[in-house]
């Protein structure tokens, strides 16, 4: 569960927005892992693409912080930047694909097969089925599910991040969970989605 953005983050963000480099560095250090995970989910767990996206997010964050007023949590502000950066990125890829009609510029790479308990666990049938099913969702839906289930964010914060009403978040999540459950089944694992 992600810790909620507290007044310390808001203060740091406001200071960073006024050009305080040290505040910006502290903010990045404290939020990088969470932002990186969202970028990874948005990038379909493609490490190279996630890194590219995260680099873009870092720049956008720095350039966007002077506009941050502290009226929403820093997390909402930062996750929103991730979402917008990914949307722009996918639009760019779609444009390039239309222009060149070539193959997909990037394909998701398999998870690094380095040994270790976590990797072994991830290679389990269920984890792989979940991963494949997630890749069949739209990036924004993947991000919504990741933030809700992987990071444990609540409906109100998700509503702020995605710019939709809390009720819509709830119904969209319900639909997504059902769809993900069906996709996991299609991918060969009998996961039980929440009914």
């Amino acid at each position: 569960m992600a810790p909620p953005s507290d007044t310390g983050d808001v203060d740091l963000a406001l200071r960073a927005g006024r050009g305080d480099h040290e505040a910006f560095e502290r903010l990045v250090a404290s939020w990088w892992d969470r932002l990186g995970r969202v970028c990874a989910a948005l990038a379909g767990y493609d490490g190279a693409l996630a890194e590219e996206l995260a680099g873009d997010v870092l720049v956008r964050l720095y350039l966007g912080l002077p506009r941050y007023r502290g009226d929403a949590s820093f997390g909402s502000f930062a996750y929103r930047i991730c979402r917008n950066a990914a949307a722009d990125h996918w639009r760019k890829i779609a444009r390039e694909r239309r222009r060149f009609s070539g193959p997909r510029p990037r394909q998701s790479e398999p998870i690094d097969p380095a040994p270790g308990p976590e990797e072994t666990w991830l290679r389990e049938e269920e984890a792989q089925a979940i991963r494949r099913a997630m890749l069949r969702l739209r990036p924004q839906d993947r991000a919504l599910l990741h933030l809700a289930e992987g990071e444990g964010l609540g409906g109100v914060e998700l509503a702020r991040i995605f710019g939709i009403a809390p009720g819509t978040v709830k119904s969209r999540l319900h639909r997504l969970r059902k769809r993900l459950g069906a996709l996991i089944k299609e991918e060969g694992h009998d996961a039980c989605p929440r009914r």
Partner: protein
Amino acid sequence: MTHAPDDSQTRRGRVLGVLAERAAPARPDLAAARKRIEAEELVVRLERASRRPRVLVAAAACALVLSCAAFAAGSYLRDRALARADAGESELAVLAQRPMEAEMSSLVADIFNSTGF
């Protein structure tokens, strides 16, 4: 969330977290990132600066078109007056014979022709 997640959902949440963790980028080298940020800042500033001259050029072009139109209108009226004076016509008599609308549309057509529209 407004409901407690069931076991499969909790496990799925863990899987999602670990999948993302595995693909998440390493912490950035902020010194290197700052160079990119500075470059992007420069691009933003240059874009802003390049927008200003574009506005000035557009304003100058509008002013030029309006001056040409005014000049053409002046020339037209002067030529008409001279032509009528040459023909011995009185200005008022011509205006009385032709409706004002026709006079104006002819004037507008001449202005557009002379300004290249």
